[in-house]
């Protein structure tokens, strides 16, 4: 048992932080647009190799987990999780950004409008297909992610290839979701704590009220646990760890988001503060891969199998 972050991971994350800070400094200000995609940052992350860490001997899945958590904790939106796990470990030859469709292939999904590959995950097989802009139709930007659906799902399916074992793809996606969600929640938490330190009501910072402190502290405990469950799932390669991490985080998300929006008050309802870039991403991830309901039933079935 060793929780120390290896030096090479620390160095990688330190370099990543510099890139992210630069991107945040030069990004267009929050301008009232509801969905967002940092194309320049996405390309910079790809070019600099940060999204390949999982498949590199000197880094591996732990580094990938930390990369995804770090990127997701920022109010910038790029496709990092699918690329860092699914592409790096199962589809290295396929171009990114990578979008994923599970179950019904005619539904809208995140990053599809900017993706160059789409993974079509059924219960028994995983297929992948190259796509271009004309293959997709943008949908209403309810979530902070760029959302789109396939113009012709049947045609896409027809030209797709079986690429990997569906169970492997599902496990990698669960890890990706857990890492992305834990990073998003952590970023949102610290955005709100910054706000409540400075916002004064009744003559004092609202973050000094015990009612606010205790609920944010409860969020912090859950998010810290989720962060480590996600890292363990990335490193262990175990399906049990992957469904547990994703399920735990998905299960906790609604309660955490309620508190974070509550303490941000009306400011959190605006598109001028970036809280929605975390909270609406998290709202979409609630349902990823069947959501908490499926994940928690799955982890129970794996831990206590029927025949044991």
């Amino acid at each position, binding site marked *: *048992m*060793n*929780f*120390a*972050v*290896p030096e090479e*991971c620390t160095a990688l994350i330190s370099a990543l932080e510099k890139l992210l800070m630069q991107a945040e400094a030069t990004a267009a200000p929050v301008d009232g647009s509801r969905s967002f995609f940092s194309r320049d940052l996405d390309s910079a992350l790809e070019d600099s190799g940060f999204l390949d860490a999982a498949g590199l001997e000197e880094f591996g899945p*732990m580094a990938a987990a930390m990369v995804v958590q770090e990127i997701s904790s920022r109010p910038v939106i790029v496709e990092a999780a699918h690329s860092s796990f699914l592409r790096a470990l199962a589809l290295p030859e396929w171009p990114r950004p990578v979008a994923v469709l599970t179950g019904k292939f005619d539904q809208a999904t995140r990053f599809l409008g900017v993706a160059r590959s789409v993974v079509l995950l059924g219960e028994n097989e995983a297929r992948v297909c190259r796509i271009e802009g004309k293959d997709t139709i943008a949908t209403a930007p309810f979530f902070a992610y760029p959302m789109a659906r396939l113009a012709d799902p049947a045609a896409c399916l027809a030209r797709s290839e079986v690429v990997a074992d569906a169970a492997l793809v599902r496990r990698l996606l669960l890890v990706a979701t857990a890492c992305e969600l834990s990073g998003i929640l952590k970023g949102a*938490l610290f955005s709100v*704590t910054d706000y*409540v*330190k400075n916002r004064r009501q009744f003559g*004092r*910072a609202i*973050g*000094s009220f*015990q009612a*606010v*402190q*205790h609920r*944010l*502290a*409860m969020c*912090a*405990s*859950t998010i*810290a*646990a*989720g962060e*480590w*469950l996600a*890292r*363990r799932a990335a*490193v*262990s390669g175990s399906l049990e760890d992957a469904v*547990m991490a994703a*399920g*735990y985080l998905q*299960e906790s998300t609604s309660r955490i988001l309620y508190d974070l929006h509550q303490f941000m008050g009306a400011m959190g309802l605006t598109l001028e503060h970036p809280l929605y870039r975390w909270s609406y991403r998290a709202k979409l991830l609630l349902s990823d891969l069947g959501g908490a*309901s499926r*994940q*928690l*039933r*799955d*982890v*129970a*079935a794996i*831990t*206590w199998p*029927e025949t044991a």
Partner: protein
Amino acid sequence: MDFSWSGPQSAFRARVVDFLKSELPDDWSEIARHGPGSRQQTDFSLRFCPKLAEAGLLVPHWPKEFGGEGATVWEHFILGEEMWAAGEPRGPQYMNVNWIGPTIMRFGTDEQKELHLPRAAKGQAIWCQGFSEPSAGSDLVSLRTSAERDGDNFVVNGSKIWTSYAGLADHCFLLARTSGKRKDGICIFIVPMDTPGISVRPIPSLVGEGDIHEVFFNDVTVPASAMLGEEGKAWSIITYSLGNERVGIPRYEFSRRTLDALVARLKEEGRWNDEYIRYRAGQALSACEAARLLVYRVVDERSRGAPPSAESSLARFAVITADHAVSNFGLEFLPASYSNDDIPSLKPHHERAIASGIASGAAEIQLGIVAQSYLELPWEPRA
């Protein structure tokens, strides 16, 4: 980074498990039902702990000079996990090995070390913790029990409450006030419980037999040599002690094993194919594993010699959440088992779960520490 156990760590765990298999009697679950403060479990601990000591498994993490083997922080924790998973057969003695002994080692005089550590290391000492008072629970610094200097002695007057194990303890780790200054007026005394003037009243409770008491001190004469550490310096010692206590108990492991037993019973009853029950079991399981990882992180920090931090309060809150998740699962799906008493760990687990957010520093204290030290939220002093 490695989330698996090393060879030596696995071997140590196997050694503990083997010992428990060979030394726990067939009627252990009957004894454990009475709770850790009960006469039955206390008497059992006085038979069991000496065997544990003989096998080098009572205080393996203590330095060799005090009867230990210099075991690692992780090995100490593995020992605690397996003991808790078995229902804590060390009874009240877990306190001696986890924090009272180490506190005496660090702050005690040679005479105190010689007097108390060998007995604790042999599994022959039962202690109680004289901290909380009717007007000083979470706000420990408000304690009023006084210790007035009288030549070479102090005379103690006051009362303690919620004191676990007091009815059968031979010594009390007592906090008393020698002056009116808040933190700086508190001292620690090691007091034999048979000292004239001490009386104990058990309080009937929901948390096991003999677990909570009132302790009254009426003109109790204590020699100055019984003071632990310097006069007025007790607060830093208490902080050190509580730092050891707060994550010293791997209760999530007891919760996890109780959850295993609940699922086994649901399978026997043919109810394990119920998807909602599985979902709720998954919730409780993930709460246990969340607590485990946060506690492991603290243990890992401690193994590197890092000072105690707010991480232990993050972990403590997760442990409380896990205790409640498992207890609520049992109450929702197998309520009859609480009456039938057909799952041995169920009632003891429930008794600990309902106290877990209250004992050893309330959940709200932990949340306050997280808010101010981890999230760095502002603290506004009382008007």
